[in-house]
Every structure is written in C-alpha cells, then in structure tokens.
C-alpha cells in the first residue's frame, strides 16, 4: 500500500474484501466477485466482525446517508441496464462507483474519464499503428479501451463525468449497452466482441457542471438513474469528515489525533452555508462555490497536515484560512458572503455557546 499516493479501493480495503469473499454464502451473478448481499455489507458496513485468517475483520460503513440508494445501485448492476449516478459535486458519486466496482468486479480502475476531448476510439478501441502496418487489422494490433476490457473480462467499466463528452460520442455506448456487442468492422469475421456476464457500466455526472452535453434520451433509457444528494444530517457529515480525514492521515503517516469538535464545527459550517439557513433559523446568503462534504474533508485535512508539519496542534486560524481559500476561489462575492456568515451566525454562536465557536469567530480577521 505504501507505493500509492491514493491506493485504489480494492487495495485500500483488500482485507475486508478478502474476508467477505471467504465467508460469502450468497448467490452470485455470474462473474461477480461478491454476492449482492456481501457487496451491500462492504459498502454499508456491518456491526458483526468477520473471522478471517485468525483475526476479526470489521467491515466499516463507507457510504453514508442513503442505504436504499446503495441497494438499488447493486440490483441495477446485476440487471441489464447501466447505472448512472448524478448529483451535486462532492456527494461521493465517484467514491460510490469505485466501491461498487471493487466489490463487484474486484477492481475499480477500469475507467474512462469523460472530457470535452474524449473521442470514440478512446471509448471503443484504437490501433497500435506499427503492428497494424506490419500485420494488418488483427486482434493483437488492437489497443483495447476500458469498455473493451470490461466487455471481454466481464467486469464493470466506470465512465466518469460522462456528460462532459460530446453527445455523439456518448451515443456510441448505445449499441454496446443494448446489444452487449462491440462491432469492429476492420476485423471482419472476427469483428464481433460479445460482452461476458459481469460487464456493466457505471456512469457519473455532475448536475452543476456548466457546458455539459445533455444525454440523448435513447442513451438515458439504457440506464437507471440514481440521484445522490448531499448528506442531510450534520452528525453524519461530521462522521464522514472524521472517517475520511483519519484514513488519509493513516495513508500519509500523519500521527495526529483528529479533533472531533473541529470536525463538528466544520460540518455545521458547511451544512449551514449549503442550506442557506442556520440551525436557529437565520437566513444565510449561500456562496456560489460548491459547499460539499468532499470540500469540507479537504479543508480539514489541509489544516491537519499543516499542524503536523509546522505546528503542534490544529489551529482554527489555519482552518479559517483554508476555508477562505476553498470558498472564495471563484468570485469575490463569496468572500462577502462568508464574512457575513461570520458576522451573523458565527457571532451568534460565539455569544451563545462560547468555546470553540468563540475561538472560531476570533479568526474572522483571516478572511480576505
């Protein structure tokens, strides 16, 4: 694990996956690494540990806030339709698609990254021109795409940010999804690649993205859509921040306790700015920047690593500066909104609750 900056899910949770596989008694769809029930347990966790290799492996909950959604995703992937995760930025669409792929196919890295420059051969296949010239159109000369790999191996292909690719490129998926065949005319008789069972597609799309290409309705029909919403419960959001920051810290060998009060403060701040209303019902001008849980995690983590390398303990001044940078990167208006938030809601809490909120309010001067 040491060798990765960010290890893929199947490496990060290798032990949990192995333990689940060893004890999995459920019926599996063909080519699935785990049964649907075990996939569910992997993502939603279990309060019973699993005895494996002489020790007890605990399966942690990894996706919070909507168990039913996860169950629906799993069932969708066992069927003939693709799964499309849509939602605001930072709602763990990518994370969920990685978890699903790792648990279902054993790998989460078979991925197409959608961009405006994505072309049809990046989705389907391209050629190694040296070989192509030497041997003509033969299978060896073909450079497989993640989609091709998914079909031939019977695993999941993840398609990130699908709506950023031009619509006609997206549409090249239609025939693959409906007939489960990829046609390679150059190979003539050998040119039909049939999908093995286990193949499916998980797409993700961000609904706040500008300049996206609306999916055609023909393509939409081949997917079940799941809308992933930001976590509604502040306590859950705090839990996510704690979990993620802890995990990142372990990976980076930062041995610093994660302060739960600060996590709670940040969770509340993000929650209130996102919803546009404070816990006590005060109206707040919402910043136009994305106020996602993922952003909160990264703000906290920056603060934590800064403390580890340069200071003794977590400083709220540092936290506020990181918050400032995260929120105000796009427009100046957001700075005013953040200041206003401090001057009303944070001030109110500082007076009423004191403690950490008072300290937080005193860092107001770093907003610029």
């Amino acid at each position, binding site marked *: 694990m040491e060798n990765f900056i960010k290890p893929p899910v199947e490496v990060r949770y290798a032990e949990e996956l192995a333990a689940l596989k060893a004890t999995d008694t459920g019926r599996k769809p063909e080519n699935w690494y785990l049964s649907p029930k075990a996939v569910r347990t992997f993502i939603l966790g279990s309060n019973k540990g699993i005895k494996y290799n002489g020790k007890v492996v605990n399966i942690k909950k990894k996706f919070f806030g909507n168990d*039913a959604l996860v*169950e*629906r995703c799993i069932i969708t992937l*066992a069927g003939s*339709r693709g799964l499309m995760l849509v939602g605001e930025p930072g709602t763990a669409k990518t994370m969920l698609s990685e978890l699903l792929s790792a648990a279902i196919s054993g790998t989460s890295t078979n991925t197409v990254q959608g961009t405006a420059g994505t072309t049809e051969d990046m989705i389907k296949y391209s050629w190694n021109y040296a070989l192509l010239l030497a041997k003509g159109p033969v299978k060896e000369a073909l450079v497989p795409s993640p989609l091709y790999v998914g079909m031939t191996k019977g695993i999941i292909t993840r398609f990130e940010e699908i709506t950023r690719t031009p619509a006609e490129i997206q549409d090249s998926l239609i025939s693959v999804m409906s007939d489960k065949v990829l046609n390679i005319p150059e190979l003539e008789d050998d040119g039909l690649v049939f999908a093995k069972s286990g193949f499916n597609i998980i797409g993700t799309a961000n609904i706040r993205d500008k300049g996206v290409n609306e999916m055609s*309705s023909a393509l939409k*029909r081949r997917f*079940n859509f799941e*809308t992933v919403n930001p976590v509604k419960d502040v306590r859950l959001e705090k839990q996510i921040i704690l979990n993620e920051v802890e995990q990142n810290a372990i990976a980076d060998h930062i041995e610093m306790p994660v302060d739960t009060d600060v996590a709670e403060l940040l969770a509340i701040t993000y929650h209130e700015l996102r919803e546009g209303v404070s816990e006590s019902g005060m109206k707040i001008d919402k910043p136009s920047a994305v106020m996602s849980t993922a952003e909160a995690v990264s703000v906290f983590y920056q603060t934590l690593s800064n403390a580890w390398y340069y200071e003794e303990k977590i400083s709220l001044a540092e936290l506020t500066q990181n918050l400032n940078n995260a929120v105000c990167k796009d427009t100046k208006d957001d700075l005013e909104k953040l200041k206003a938030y401090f001057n009303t809601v944070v001030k109110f809490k500082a007076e009423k609750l004191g403690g950490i909120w008072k300290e937080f309010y005193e860092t107001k001067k770093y907003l610029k």
Partner: protein
Amino acid sequence: MERILRNKEIFEVIPFDYSQKILYFPIRHHSPVCSFHLLNVIEEYKPDCILVEGPQNSDKLIPILTHEDTKPPVAFYYYYKDTQKLINENAEDYKCYYPFLNTSPEYNALVQAARKNIDCGFIDLPYGEILINSSKQSNAYGDEHNLTESKFFEKVCEKTGMRSFEEFWENYFEIKGLYMPTDEFVANMMTYCYLTRTNTPQENIIAEGCHVREQYMAENILRAAETHQRVLVVTGGFHTYGLHRLTSGQDKLKKVKVHKFNEKVQNVYAMIYSFEAADALNGYASGMQNPGFYDKAWKSIISGEESIFEIYDNVVLDILLQCAKECAKEKLLITMSDISSAVTMYKGLCSVRDKKSPGLYELYDSVQSCFVKGELNAASDLPLRILSRIATGNEIGELCGEAEKIPVIQDFEEQCKKYRLKVDNILEQEVELDIFAKPSHMEMSRLFYRMGYLKTEFSRRLKGADILNNKDRSRIRETWEYKRTVHTDSALIDVSVYGATIEEICKVMSAHQIKEEQKCSEASKLYVECFLMGIGVTNEFAVKTDEIIINDGDFFSLGKGLYYFNMLDTLKKMYNAEGIVTEYFLEKCFQKILIMLPSMMNVDSDHADECIKICRIRKSF
C-alpha cells in the same frame, strides 16, 4: 428481533388459547394481517360476545356500520362541547374521527358479529370522557404513536436495519405474518406490544388517559363475561397487557365515573370517508400509511383466489403496471423494458433485504430507479407522485340510507332543495341571481357566500359585484357556479361542532375569528364578509371591533377600515341589511386617521398614493 419474537413465552404473561373465557386479540388499526388472523380466531374460538375498543357512545351506530349497504371507508365523527369547563377553563369544542376501512380489524369484527348474530359492543369511555381524563388531545381516535414511536422501537430499528416503523411493520407483520399460524402471529404481536408497553413510562400512560380508559374497558369486559361464555376482546395491542392485568386481578380495578351529557354536548354520527383522509401520511394520527395499497392486498386476501404467499408479489406487480399506465396517460412513456427492469429491481431488493415478498418500499424503490429518467427533481418525479396517489387510493365510502344525517348536512340538503340547487349531479352547475329583485335570490347568494366562508369549495362567483376587491361594483346580477363534492361534506362536518345550521356555524366562526384579529383592515374585511353572508354581528363582536380600532396604530390598516365601512354604509340599504352598525366605526376610523395624518408628512413615495386615496374616501361621503 427474530429472537425476541420467536418465543411463545409471552403466552405465560398473557394467555392465548381457546379455552379462555376472555380472549384478547391485539391489533393495529387498519392492518390487513390483523384482520386476517382475527377472522381465523372468530372461526375457531366461536365467541358469543365480541368487544371492540371504541367510545361506548357509538354503540348505536353499529347497525349502520355493519349494514350491507354501508361500504368503507366510513368514519364515526364525535363531538364534545366543554361548556361545563371539565377539560380546562377555555370551554372549547372538540371533535374527532374514527375511520373504518375494509382492512380494519374493528370493522371486520363487528361485521362478523352482525352476520353470526354474536353480541357485540364498544367498551371505551365516551369521547368527552376520554378528553376529560387525558392531558393531550388528538383529532383521531386510537392514536397509535405509543406503538410506532417508542424507545423500544428505536432499538428494534437498529437491530433489524429497518428504516422506519412502517417498513418494519410491513416486513415483520404485514408480510411475514401471512405465512404464520395464527397463534404464532398473535405471539409476535403480543410480544412486540408487551415490550413497547413495558418500555413506556407510566406517567405517559397516565397523562394520555390510557390508564382510566383501561379501567373502564376492563370493567365492561368483566361485566360481559358475567353473562357470556367466550368473550373476544379486540383492542389496540398497546392496551392488551394493561387490560389483562386488570381483568385477571393482578392490578386493582377502580370504578370510573362518567358524566351524563345530553346530545347537544356530546354526540356521534356516521359519515362517509375517503382513503385520502385516512392516510396516516396526511397527518392522521392513527393507522397505516398508504391505505389504497393495503386495501388491494386485503381484497386479494379475502377473495381467496391467490395463494397467501403470492399476495404481495401480485399487488406490487399490479400497482406497478397501473402506475405505468397512468404515467402514459400523463404523456410519460414507460416502456416494457422499464417495467421488466422494475420487476427485477423489486425482486432483487427483496432478496438483498431478506424479505419474503416485496412490499411498498420495494415498489417505491423500483419506480424511482426505473421509471424516473434523469436527475430526480420536481420536474422528473411524476412517476413517484402517481405511485403515491395510487398507494393512497381514491375510494370514497357509502352509508346506508338509515344513517342519521349530521344536522348541518341535513340543513345543507334542505336548503339545496328549497332553492332547487342540483347537488346530486357530478357536473358543475350554473345559476344567475337577480339579487336585488328577488328575495330568494339574495338568500341564495348568501348561502353561496356562507359556503365559501366555510371553505367547502362548493360555490364560486363567476360574475357579479366584487365588493371586497372593489371591482364591477355596478353589476346587479351575480352568476355562480356550484358543485357538491366529498370535500363539501367533509368541510361541513369538520365545522359541524359549531352548530346545527350553516348560518349558525358561520355566526359562531366569525365571532371566533374576530377575537383573533388585531388589525382594523382585517376586522373590517370580516364585516364585509358577514354582510355578504347576511350574518348579523353580535354585540360582543362590535365591542371587539371597537377595541381593535382603538389599538390599531397603522394608518393604512385604518384606511382600509375606513374604506370598507364607508362602502357598507352606502350599500346596506340596497342589500336590505340596515341593522348593521357602520356609521359609528366609520367615524371612529376617520377620527384616528385625522389624528395620525400629520405623521404622514414624511411618507415615502411608495405609500404616498395610498395615503392620498385614503384622504379621498372621506370626500366621497
């Protein structure tokens, strides 16, 4: 939960065998599976007396409820007027509903009793007495929050991974319960209710009046047992343990004294009801959510045409198909592929969730995944809205001809007859009224205004003078459109506690309303409404109005008052309403406005126009 529920040790706490002289059958309101097992018990136990939880003063309605022409959903409507201030100092009026659906165990028990000629009756305190003995008032009889929101249930939720009480109930009782022999089902019910009961603090039980009610019920049960051999007692499961302790002598029985009230103070009527009103999702505090869904399940249970084990699979599929059809009607095409994908979805979820059959939750999930295209938002959630409509159901009950009419409904029907209004038609009707030429037309206009004030959605003025908004004032005819719907009746019933006639109710309600008002603008508007309804205002009403004007310091609110009173002053002769006091208030408003006028020197330009308008009113008279 499995473990807690499997054992039959509960029968040592509350016995359940057919040799008992008193046999308790615990239920949840409107639950099909409870009805299903209850029918079995009636077959097996062969009771010679069936007692049902319900206010005793509704006994007289049992023949109406069980009449073969009566079709649920119907409800008992209770009212109690606390004129003697037995509840508190406010002397308020109270009302509540007790709905009966096809799925209600209480309804099924009473119908069986009628068919088999078994003695039967309600055993709970009369409605007013329940109120007097509890510190909280609910608008629904048989509030079940003790069962559905208990501390104990939170633990169960954690253990079973269920997301809500409703989902837990459906899975463990409604569906799994169909697979169980009756005694096992009863054991589960009793265990769950027993644990809930023993986890509820005694002071809550007392505060809610449960305690006194159970004393009273136990007394009635014991009395029945003196003259019968096998007494079957059907009550909400929460009471079973308490009742058993009382009737078996483990707790001491105290006699409950009840007041004697005449029918003016306390009474009960049967009325037609709708699934929509009975849906717990609409805030109705007792019973199951989505009654339409469970009604379908119940119909197929009693038809006996399908295997019990396929009931929910079939209901879910039926409703899924119905939902697809109705989506198509609203121009959203659901393809065969969507449907088959939805079927795969609910079946798969059912297995991932360890359920025996899919239920409502799997149905909703599959529609959301497979019928909703694209991001889920207010523009795309049509399939879910349609599904929820179907699951609520739109059925409306029927009452047999013998049912006594609620006085205000009777009054309404008499007036409709008198003025030859066509209310047995489902089409909108139109009438033109020559209100100044024909006295009866003036009366009709008033009836329409009254019905409007009572929010019955019965009548709508299409043409005619709009006095409130000062439009078309010169028109001397009015054109109205009207139609009687279920809503008309239920809105009337809802206010029937205030009186026996529409006129009386409007009088009482407007008098209540004036007490709440603080602004001269609102008070004077109410005057106009009363004027249009032909309701004379009482002395108290006028005194209150006077007070409002004295205390109102808002120039514009007083200006509105000036305007309305001025108008009434000019109109009252024409409308034949000379009794109404207008000059006095007109003068009052005018004086206050005069005093405040200097402060309007600096009024901002937004309000200047209005200010000038107010000053002009005086000029006009």
